[in-house]
């Protein structure tokens, strides 16, 4: 087995050339750990393609773990072993000259038949007529078998190549199938489904109980002061402000004159109930504390004092619905629906890949924004629209389009014709709807060169062996040449077309 070492310094082109110029047969390739082949998967794919196109059977070795993983991706993991066992079997089963691998590259050596003539002497003259007749007979038979019956057989081996072609078509429910305009008849479908989803809420709001108490107001003027419900009162302590509101209307009477010399007054008094504006025990303030009322001077107009202490204030945190929860439950519901969605199968019809759209037409949430709750759920109406097409029609469409797709000089090979249709996504700025969609049609099959056996025959007739091989090389095929006698090198190919057999073997 020959060996090939791929070093770190070997450039990709250099490696390709080494494989291409390697002689047919088995080859052990050792790839250095930091070879350019392991820099990316593309380099390895190219490397493997060159091997596949060559006449070498390879065994690849490397110490690189990354390289081994990458090799497994581009190369069947059992390929090395399989190739080798196949190769060994072929060695046992077939005679070397019958193996295509060798006959392709090796030129056959030719030896003239060896004759030993009898020694000539006068005593043999008596036998001369007999000898002449014998020579004539042998010559005629020789001519008959070696020249007249001489035929040349050429086996041409053509390999099928993968044929993948993509082109843009329009799938339309508005038009009928028209190959020339690249339109395939489709159908738009649309159905409304219902989806629900429940998630835990993530928002937090303050909850608990607000402190309540009683406030006494002292009117120091000669006018009745009317305080409406919700009038704000403020208690200041250590730089912090605590706000309260009246929970009822309070009319504070005027002051009263109690003596004239000197004039003394008693403030008009009235109590009213009040409540803290927020939750928490810090609002539980004791009796006797002074509060201020916006707009009133506590010394000359109106003062307020806690007459019955504020109590019952408690604060705790509650789960509630946040803006994010509303969006999250909505998107999760849609995503869940999309991931579980299965198209109803219609016999003979295929859904156009990527043509589906999911639109929420309405949605209802179990709770409102900021509402205290541990869970929130949504019920959505989702309109699913998509396009379908008839598989048989698509196949007929492809077959009718094939003439313009397959390269000159090739024809499709085998029955393995696969088609894939996919709506073009928004990356190319296409609009998707369920009436009409631009789609990419991909055809996967095998192509094989079309060879005109009669033309090949006429090009071989009367040619020297070297001219024959030059011609066969020029049409880029693998071939195997045999003849009914060993005179091919000497006589070249027969001029008579009936004596040339050309068989084309498709692989």
């Amino acid at each position, binding site marked *: 087995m020959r060996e090939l070492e791929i070093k770190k310094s070997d450039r990709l*082109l250099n490696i390709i050339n080494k494989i291409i110029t390697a002689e047919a047969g088995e080859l052990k390739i050792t790839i250095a750990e930091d070879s350019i082949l392991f820099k990316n*998967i593309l380099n390895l794919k190219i490397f493997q393609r060159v091997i596949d196109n060559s006449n070498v059977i390879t065994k690849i070795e490397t110490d690189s773990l990354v390289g081994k993983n990458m090799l497994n991706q581009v190369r069947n993991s059992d390929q090395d072993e399989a190739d080798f066992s196949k190769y060994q079997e072929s060695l046992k089963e077939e005679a070397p000259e019958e193996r295509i691998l060798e006959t392709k590259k090796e030129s056959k050596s030719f030896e003239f038949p060896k004759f030993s003539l009898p020694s000539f002497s006068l005593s043999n003259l008596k036998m001369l007529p007999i000898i002449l007749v014998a020579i004539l007979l042998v010559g005629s038979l020789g001519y008959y078998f070696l020249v007249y019956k001489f035929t040349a057989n050429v086996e041409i081996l053509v390999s099928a190549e993968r044929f993948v072609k993509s082109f843009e078509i329009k799938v339309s429910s508005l038009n009928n199938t028209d190959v020339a305009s690249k339109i395939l008849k489709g159908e738009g479908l649309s159905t409304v489904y219902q989806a629900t989803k429940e998630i835990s809420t993530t928002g937090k709001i303050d909850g608990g109980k607000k402190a309540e108490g009683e406030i006494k107001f002292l009117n120091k003027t000669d006018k009745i002061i009317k305080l409406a419900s919700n009038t704000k009162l403020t208690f200041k302590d250590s730089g912090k402000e605590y706000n309260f509101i009246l929970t009822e209307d309070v009319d504070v009477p005027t002051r009263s004159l109690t003596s004239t010399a000197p004039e003394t007054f008693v403030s008009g008094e009235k109590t009213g109930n009040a409540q803290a504006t927020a939750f928490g025990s810090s609002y539980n303030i004791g009796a006797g504390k002074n509060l201020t009322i916006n707009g009133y001077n506590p010394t000359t107009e109106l003062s307020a004092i806690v007459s019955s202490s504020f109590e019952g204030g408690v604060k705790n945190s509650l789960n509630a619905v946040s803006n994010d929860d509303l969006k999250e439950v909505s998107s999760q519901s849609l995503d869940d629906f999309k991931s579980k969605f299965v198209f109803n199968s219609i016999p003979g019809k295929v859904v156009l890949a990527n043509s589906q759209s999911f639109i929420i037409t309405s949605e209802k949430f179990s709770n409102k924004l900021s509402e205290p709750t541990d869970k929130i759920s949504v019920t959505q109406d989702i309109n699913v629209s998509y396009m379908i097409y008839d598989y048989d029609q698509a196949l007929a469409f492809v077959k009718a389009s094939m003439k313009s797709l397959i390269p000159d000089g090739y024809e499709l090979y085998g029955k393995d014709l696969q088609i894939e249709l996919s709506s073009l996504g928004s*990356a190319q700025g296409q609009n998707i709807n369920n009436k009409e969609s631009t789609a990419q049609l991909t055809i996967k099959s095998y192509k094989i060169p079309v060879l005109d056996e009669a033309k090949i025959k006429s090009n071989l007739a009367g040619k020297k062996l070297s001219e024959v091989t030059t011609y066969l090389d020029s049409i880029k095929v693998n071939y195997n040449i045999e003849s009914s006698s060993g005179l091919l090198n000497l006589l070249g190919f027969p001029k008579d077309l009936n004596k040339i057999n050309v068989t084309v073997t498709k692989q």
Partner: protein
Amino acid sequence: MFLDKIKNLIPSFNKESPFFLTIDLNSDTLKVYLNEVVIVENEEKLRIRKEYKEHVSEDYFNNGEIINFHKLKEVFDKILTEIKADFKEIKIKNCLVLLSGNNTKSIMTTLQVNRTTNGEIDEKENAEIMQKVFEASYNELSAIIYDETGAENLSMELIDYIPVYISLDSREVLDLIGENGDEVQICYSVFFGNSDLMDGFRKLLGNLGLEVKNFIPSNLAILRTLKKSRKDKIDCVILDIGGKTTEAIVCFGGGVLLNKTLDIGGSDLTLQLAEKLSLSYLNAEKVKRLYTFNKLKEKESAVVQKVLTFNLENWLLGLEELFMSFDSVKVFPSDFYVVGGSCELPDVLEYLFEEPWTKSIPFKSLPKFKKIDFSNLKKLDKAQIQRPIEDLIPTLASIYYLEKGERQ
């Protein structure tokens, strides 16, 4: 602070230097261009005063990796010494570095943002949205690179971006700032560079008294030129045939969708010539140039052509695989622009344009090949348009730098 105030009062401190260097080390040759910004008819134009080229050994720099810092610094130093000798009166501090091939990656990313706040979008929110786009691009690119190379820990630095489209509640807008709406859809083409290499350049050039003002991805510089000269929302494929690589850049809507690189370039052809003709690399390069300009004898030319033909067939095979590896592209645009130093070789274009290698690749219609050259570069001083094609991309980068106005 006080010193800055004094500097501001002195005009010479504020005077923008018209000279800057463009550095291109994306093959085995270090190219340094001394540029001058000149005013022609009240417009700033680029004038390349002189270019300097020096072969760099693979032992010093290879595959985007600085192998021997000190030796590479010596090569740079040699060129800077030459510049100082040639232009004694000029003091140069600013430089820009061109990144291409495997050293820069670009990707187009679309992001939908549902706003949680009301009111107009301010600068802060806009910056947050952009940050999300950059993060998404980085993650998307990381996944692609992981698939291609198996590498998990990437060192990539954000270099630049091109907005492809921005819409608010399905209404296209030029800028988000000051706009109001609920749903933002934003698509950017984002460019990253090999941060290890960028740090290496900063350190090396910093040691030589230079300041790297910008790293410019070559694909961005080329695309910007096409956007200006052809169409802003251009769909095209750009093929940059460089020294060690051939880079395919797929563009949609005026942004780069993705770029990928084949590890075969012009210097590989030179290496093959050197091997087959038993020449040194530098002599093989000379032979290649003589062949390019049809200055070899007929027999010699036939030998060179035979070697090139054999290797170009293999290059096309690699190119076909390169295009097939763009999994995210369903149909390639048919406008095909070819650029890069190796374009000068007539056989390269002949093979590219005439061989049926594109048959197995899904192009929107038959590819239309076009070559980008120095014509139509409005920012280039008219006297400069007769330059070798290998100078084109560094020139485009210099023009982009000039237009960005970041010289100060």
